[in-house]
């Protein structure tokens, strides 16, 4: 199943589906990188909430995407890694070092909020 990529202002949000083949992941990578350039996005959030297994290929791909996006001048954040997935990942040594992570989409968006712009409720 292909990943869905949404554009929300300057942020791109990619939702990884529960069942994604290696080809799907590679395609998501290509689309994301192209879209960051096209929309001049400042941030990319990759939501993996639905992912119940993270193998080494997926982890390596996600890491690669994050590094590419960084090279393009944007920030990538991986959100929604579930507790069980997180622990099995570190057991496999897939620690996604140097990559930003957040609990969920909401937290990820909060991290991307550009400094100096604050929204106040009255």
């Amino acid at each position, binding site marked *: 199943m292909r990943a869905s990529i949404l554009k929300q202002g300057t942020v791109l949000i990619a939702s990884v589906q529960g069942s994604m083949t290696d080809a799907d992941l590679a395609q998501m990578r290509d689309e994301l990188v192209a879209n960051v350039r096209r929309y001049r996005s400042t941030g990319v959030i990759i939501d993996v909430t639905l992912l119940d297994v993270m193998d080494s290929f997926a982890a390596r791909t996600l890491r690669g995407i994050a590094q590419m996006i960084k090279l393009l001048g944007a920030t990538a954040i991986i959100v929604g890694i579930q507790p069980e997935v*997180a622990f099995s990942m570190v057991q496999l040594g897939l620690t996604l070092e140097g990559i930003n992570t957040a609990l969920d989409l909401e937290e990820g968006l909060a991290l991307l909020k550009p400094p100096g712009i604050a929204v106040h409720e009255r």
Partner: protein
Amino acid sequence: MAEQETAAVGIDQAGGRIEISQQELDLRKRFLELGEDDVGRLTGINDLARRYANGVIDDFYRHLMSFGETRGFFADPQVLARVKNMQKEYFLRLTQGNYDLDYVRDRLRIGAIHERVQLPVKSYLGMYNFYLRAVAQRLADAFKKKPDDGWAAFLSLMKLTFLDIGIAIDTYIESRERTIRTQQEAFQELPTPVLPFREGMLIVPIIGIIDSQRARQLTEQLLSSIRSNRAKMVVIDITGVQSIDSKVANHIVQTVEAARLMGARVIIAGISPEIAQTMVTLGIDLARVLTVGDLQSGIERAEQMLGYTVTRSGAAEAVGG
């Protein structure tokens, strides 16, 4: 008889059970070299035993009552009378033959009673010794003409008494082991609370021994609490942990990294000098783990990273004033 081979008797003590099988009983008898000859000799002195029973019992309790420690068990004269009677039965049973599983069951029961009233083992053994000496004297008197027979009967009695002692001590040991087991279980069940301290911040105090099982449980609990509390900072306080092994230390490092994957940073507070030494000696890489000296520093650091500033208000003057 074939049915007897697989039979076993047991006695339930509060929460525990001692079981002695026919096989085990046979083994114990063989070890003591307690055979049919002995049974014959023991039943042979049964009449004699009936005659001296009261005298032995009286001597026995006179001796017991001369010690404060054992006197305390028989403060009530009614209790004393009953116990004396039971003790007489017990002694007489020694010379009535049929040292089978029923016999063992009876002995287990008596051992359990003594254990329950917490009669010290030393007193228990002392009583057996006193009994054997009291009987030895009477056997010597009765077998004046045939001292060899008297001696043989005494040896048989001693074998049987030692069978009893073995069974009685088992009830004591079982009770001890049960206590140890209960404590171990209680220890393992020590909860590791994950405490929400501020919005987005958890504190996890760990006390006692962390073994692999507890470490795993802690990880599961922590990671799911991070999700449910939407925590960004976690302070794990291990001031109350005395020692740690490489497996558990690695597990903690993995937990810290898993938490990071979920968007939470973990601070480890209160690493003792011993644990610091162990960690370095074991070569555990803590470079990616944020560590601070104590819980206070941990909380302050976490607050700082979350953007909290804690200030003292004037009202504090009222405290202790």
